[in-house]
């Protein structure tokens, strides 16, 4: 049985080229990038090269890239360290109701420490409307953080417009771009964001590494305290193989992005329409068109998301009901609830996220087995009469 992986929003396999680039730094070139000897300097050069690769993908300059241990740390740093490093700024913060927990929980942490937090609602399609943000802005608003695209429903936000509103109100703008870096073209200048978080393992790089883009002039401050690595912004021995892998993944994403985007959009479209047309009582969640390439999220009435996943897994199809982080949780997704879906429908959610190795045959296979799975599950369900 061919295994079909359709959970690329959860994580992606390391690209073989990325793997090959990393291996020398696991073996002969194992030096500490801060050491003054040749082994150290060699590691330093590799880190610098990766920095320029990441900068190029984001349209940033090298000095604006800080390597972190992943998207969670980058988001925590952008939010928590920016505020603790800028105590003179106001104490009002704005985010949206559908952020990843790495953002939401960082804000909740600050709210407990006395910051005033506004959580913006979203439309039924999952959009944050610039006018709603405008209305929420206060003279004391220090930071606005809105994700570039949602991890569960794939809706892409009008970041440029949102950043403009934040800036007009005197606030700094951060975006969690963990789901979009490598999938959508990104130009931090064009988007006019002040900070942006990215994670390597979402773009065929290794786990355990990510970066924070910090626009020149924005004093973000360090989250970890310790040695002087990353110009003091991220102490801790550099994860050289991880950083090299991330850099290579950025390089490959940069080269392949337009072709992948077109292909995934097309395949995703077919998958989406196939599901909605062949399965009754199904509905798309998120925006009909402003969505991540290859991201299909649907809700089926009268079934439980988790049962669908187990059935799909028995066919070798790997998918998720929402974000991977909360797979074990019985609570319905905060994202789907924020979109206004009732609990019982939010429980029946399925997320299929395509990647570069998926084929049209994979889409055919899902379209072949999914209708039967849903029908069978509904047949067993007391809810469905």
């Amino acid at each position, binding site marked *: 049985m061919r295994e079909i992986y359709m959970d690329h929003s959860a994580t992606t396999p390391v690209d*073989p080229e990325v793997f090959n680039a990393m291996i020398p730094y*696991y073996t002969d070139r194992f030096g*500490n990038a801060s050491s*003054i000897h040749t082994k150290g300097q060699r590691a330093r050069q590799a880190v610098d090269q990766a920095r320029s690769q990441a900068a190029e993908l984001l349209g940033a300059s090298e000095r604006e890239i800080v390597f972190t241990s*992943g998207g969670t740390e980058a988001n925590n740093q952008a939010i928590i360290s920016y505020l603790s490093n800028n105590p003179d700024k106001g104490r009002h913060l704005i985010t949206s109701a559908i952020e990843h927990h790495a953002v939401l929980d960082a804000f909740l*942490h600050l709210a407990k420490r006395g910051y005033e937090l506004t959580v913006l609602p979203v439309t039924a399609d999952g959009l944050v409307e610039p006018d709603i943000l405008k209305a929420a802005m206060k003279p004391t608003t220090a930071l606005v953080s809105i994700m570039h695209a949602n991890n569960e429903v794939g809706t892409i936000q009008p970041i440029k417009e949102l950043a403009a509103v934040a800036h007009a109100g005197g606030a700094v703008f951060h975006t969690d771009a963990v789901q979009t870096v490598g999938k959508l073209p990104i130009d931090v200048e064009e988007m006019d964001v002040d900070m942006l978080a990215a994670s390597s393992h979402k773009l065929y790089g290794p786990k*355990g590494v990510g970066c924070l883009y910090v626009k020149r002039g924005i004093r973000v401050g360090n989250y970890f305290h*310790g040695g002087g690595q990353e110009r003091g912004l991220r102490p801790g021995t550099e994860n050289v193989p991880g950083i090299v892998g991330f850099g290579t993944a950025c390089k490959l994403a940069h080269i392949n992005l337009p072709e992948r985007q077109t292909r995934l959009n097309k395949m995703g479209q077919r998958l989406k329409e196939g599901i909605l047309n062949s399965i009754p009582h199904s509905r798309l969640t998120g925006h009909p068109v402003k969505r991540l390439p290859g991201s299909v999220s649907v809700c089926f009435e009268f079934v439980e998301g988790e049962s669908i996943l187990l059935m799909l897994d028995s066919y070798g199809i790997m998918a998720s009901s929402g974000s991977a982080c909360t*797979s074990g*949780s019985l609570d319905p997704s905060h994202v789907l609830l924020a979109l206004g879906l009732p609990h019982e429908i939010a429980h029946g959610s399925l997320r299929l996220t395509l990647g570069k190795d998926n084929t049209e045959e994979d889409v055919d296979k899902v379209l072949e087995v999914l209708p039967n799975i849903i029908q069978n599950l509904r047949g067993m369900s007391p809810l469905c009469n």
Partner: protein
Amino acid sequence: MRKVIYLDHAATTPLNCDVLEKMKPYLCENFGNASSIYQLGIESRAAVDESRYKVAYALKCQAHEIFFTSCGTESNNWAIKGIAFANRLKGNHIITSAIEHPAVKNSCEYLEHNGFDITYLPVDEFGVVSLDILKKSIRKNTILISIMYANNEVGTMQPIKEIGQIARESNIYFHTDAVQAIGNIDIDVNDCKVDMLSLSAHKFNGPKGVGALYIRTGTNIDPYLHGGSQELNRRSGTENVPGIVGLGKAIELSTIDIESKNKKVLTIRNLFIGAVIRNIPNVFLNGHPTLRLPGNANFFFQGIDAKYLATILNDEGIYVSNGSACSCNSKSPSHVLLAMNKTEETALGSVRFTFGEENTEDEVNYVVDVLSKVIEYKRKNP
């Protein structure tokens, strides 16, 4: 290609080949997110759990007391800030030492700016903390003692068991930064009575970018990275599965036969110390004569600038360090040596040689030979 002699194992160590082989599948084929519920995810979860057991076995604790982090720095930050903020109502006083790694030192300084009161215990000329001074420093509002297991620059080991005993009797949390010690000395968290212990994989032939924090059951500590609730809700962020697998394998390999490994490294190191002292005049060993990490030698060569010496040795293919790697490029003298009451000249003129299992007697002879010549030449031609 000329042979390279790597004597900077305190900065980082080469990755063990078996560790790399164990990690490889988790990069490409078994790449699942450990939180995913399908088979691929379950396999990742199982691999993470297996590593957790290996770490727990090495430290003689329970698996659910091990939390994976991104590095030693994160572990230290988490332990110190997590305890401080969770126990703020109990007190705001923290005791640490004057020779801690910057990850501990700067975390404490950060807390100092945020309403905490920090006591930096002095050390003697060998770098050892005084138990009497520690006892006298304890107050009613002391919530945490954080003292490193062994120092990264001079290798001095602290009387951890005695400190643990004092902390336990006073009902104060005890954290130790064991980044330099794990893999070099056998550690039993119950024997040491530590409540938290930080470790970093790349110091014991594991990969960079992964570490762990041991947290004794019942310890009241806040999370440090906020988000997706991984690691029993205490450390968020997608698990670095290959890194964690590598850490587990590395700790297993480095603790399996720790006594004989120790002996081997100690023999080579002692050979080096002996030869340096015999062959080079006006040289002083920093740190404790016996209570030191098996691989560590730290020398002050009178009249010789440490950075100059490290650079010259580098040209000869010998890789050493002037102080800790984090501060190689800093022009300020080592805070560790200054705390040991050394002069600024010593603090700027000391070189760290840290040995590993793969170093040989021939290498020692070669290094001592080069060292004698370089130093003799430089002293004649200052």
